[in-house]
């Protein structure tokens, strides 16, 4: 993670273009989400989803075993990766064993988390992101800034520049034309690819099925065209039954994009079978822990319930101002501020808990009811475990005595009229003005006098 949160946020706040793009994108995501409101019992479904996610976590080892056995029966191979390095080694070994030169990928946050692209590229493999937004970001040597819209921080003109440079001819800043260019270019890569890598929205344990949602169809291409399909799956990305899958799939697309269903819901159970003319000869599922098991047994365990819909990003007043990159992590917004330090408890990650106003808009929209603001507070308490600053300790002492509290209020009444806005030069006061009391006396005094 580069620099600190303050530096990254300050840079983001100074970027006017980013501001406009963020406002447009997040407003649009919130708006389309409202349009998808065709279900009458959404709140009941959310409550049930929270409980069902909990039920899965309580029996996670058994459910993972059931899933793995079913994948095996369907002809797939399951691999277990304790951390990022192991996961990358497993995929790297598979690639080496099959002399893979080109890999096509559909969007997967987990592969960003573990740095799979870099690991494969380091051994000379050509890795192609095929989600349009991810491809734009990849061509620019950049990173995604939103779970659903990796390139929401790009204008059409910038995309046209990137594509023109690759095409060796001038392409107009017209999304239709740019999209057609991407289709033709990526189509070639799909047809020559030796391996397809996808993430996993949900595994269904009872049948060993991997469920993927995409709108562009790259999820279908990756699971249909190359001779080997590798699924890289977070160990918590699982349900036990199809009833649970149905519940989750009622919530996921509606929370993500306001769709009843994404254009393509691809459900993969094993590799190509006898009598089928296409589909991969081999299916590998890499189940990745990478810090997830350590979240179990802590007060933050509900973060593992997250289904990556990104609704919390769009409503977050902080994300809407600074965008995804300022979080310095693959995961951004409220879910990122909670998840990142859980997976990587470095000082740079733990300070992300401060990137929140604790307004709880995230909790309100979360389809599985994760109390994100409580988890942010939990992290802040951990961060402060070394002891609160002296000023706060003194403040707490004063305000725990009624007489001292009243005296301090009276002092503030007078003081706040006199001190200039710049009385303490610090970052905190840079963005704030001293509140000027109206009327005479404290609220209690004014109430007592019958003024209010």
């Amino acid at each position, binding site marked *: 993670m580069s620099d600190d949160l303050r530096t990254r946020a300050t840079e983001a706040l100074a970027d006017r273009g980013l501001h406009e*793009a963020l406002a*447009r994108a997040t407003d649009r995501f919130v708006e389309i989400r409202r349009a998808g409101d*065709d*279900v*009458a*019992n959404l709140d009941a*479904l959310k*409550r*049930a989803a929270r*409980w*069902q996610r*909990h039920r899965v*976590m309580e029996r*996670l*080892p058994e459910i993972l*075993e059931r899933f*793995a056995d079913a994948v095996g029966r*369907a002809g797939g191979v399951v691999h*277990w990766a304790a951390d990022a390095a192991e996961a990358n080694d497993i995929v790297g070994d598979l690639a080496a064993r099959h002399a893979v030169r080109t890999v096509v990928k559909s969007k997967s946050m987990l592969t960003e988390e573990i740095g799979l692209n870099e690991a494969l590229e380091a051994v000379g493999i050509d890795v192609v992101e095929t*989600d*349009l*937004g991810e491809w734009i970001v990849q061509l620019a040597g950049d990173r995604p800034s939103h779970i659903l*819209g990796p390139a*929401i921080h790009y*204008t*059409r003109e910038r*995309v046209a520049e990137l594509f023109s440079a690759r095409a060796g001819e001038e392409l107009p800043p017209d*999304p239709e034309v740019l*999209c057609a260019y991407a*289709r033709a270019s990526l*189509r070639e890569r*799909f047809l020559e690819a030796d391996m397809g890598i996808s993430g996993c929205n949900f595994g269904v344990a009872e*049948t060993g099925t991997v469920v993927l949602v995409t*709108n*562009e*169809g*790259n999820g*279908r291409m990756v*699971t249909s065209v190359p001779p080997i399909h590798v699924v890289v799956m977070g*160990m918590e990305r699982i349900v036990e039954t199809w009833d649970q899958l*149905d*519940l989750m*799939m*009622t919530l996921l697309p509606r929370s993500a994009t306001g769709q*009843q269903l994404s*254009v*393509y*819901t*691809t*459900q*993969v*159970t094993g590799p190509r*079978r006898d009598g*089928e*003319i*296409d589909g991969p000869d081999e299916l590998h599922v890499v189940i990745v*822990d990478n810090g997830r098991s350590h979240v*179990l*047994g802590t*007060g933050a365990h509900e973060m593992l319930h997250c289904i990556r819909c990104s609704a919390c990003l769009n409503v977050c007043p902080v994300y809407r101002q600074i965008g995804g990159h300022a979080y310095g992590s693959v995961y951004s917004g409220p879910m990122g501020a909670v998840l990142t330090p859980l997976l990587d408890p470095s000082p740079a990650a733990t300070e992300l808990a401060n990137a929140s106003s604790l307004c709880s808009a995230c909790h309100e929209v979360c389809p599985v009811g994760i109390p994100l603001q409580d988890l942010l507070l939990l992290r802040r308490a951990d961060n402060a475990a070394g002891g609160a600053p002296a000023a706060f300790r003194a403040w707490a002492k004063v305000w725990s005595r009624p007489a001292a509290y009243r005296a301090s209020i009276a002092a503030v009444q007078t003081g706040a009229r006199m001190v200039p806005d710049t009385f303490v030069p610090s970052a905190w006061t840079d963005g704030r003005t001293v509140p000027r009391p109206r009327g005479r006396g404290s609220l209690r005094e004014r109430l007592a006098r019958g003024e209010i």
Partner: protein
Amino acid sequence: MDRDAFLARVRRRVDLGFPPNAAHPLARVDDVPEAVYTEPLDDLVGAFVAAVRRQGGEPHRATTMEALETVLDDVLAGAGTVAVSADPEVALVTDLLDDRSIDIVHPRGANELADVPIGVTGAAGAIARTGTVVVASSRAASRSVSLIPPVHLALVPAGSIVATPSDWWRNMDDRHPDGPPSQLVFITGPSKSADIELTLTVGVHGPKRLVVVVWEG
């Protein structure tokens, strides 16, 4: 890490228990509820056709071979080649295609479809609420006929339409008595992207046109 070690580590953590959240306590919910929709639905075919249109697809209803022929000619529009899947519904149009001296490709892989303009498939079923066509690799014998060509023509038997996605997912055993096929895809409209300035574009990777014929003959 081997499976046993991986799972043992997870089990040790699960055994630590799940500290409750006092501010927002977890509430037990005994069933796994289904969606209740705000709008009623009584006419499956009518609702399906309306939903396909809403999703950007091109729905048609055909009760006679003549009607089917009209739609087919409209979609073919002078194309010289079509690819077909092994779905039983495709038999409906085999004679019509033969009469038109069109090259019929029974592909053996995605590479053979690179230059084919139209893919014709049947459907394992359809979903009325969402306008979804369900294709299954087990009966189509193909994942790519419905995917690679820029136009996908799907023949949907009217009797195979169910009301909601829940009707499919909660009855997997009945729908797929031998277990789920290697690939089951719910197709809801043509391929879409909004990755460039959130401007909707169609046909990024999958078909640009999804033509759906509900066969009521």
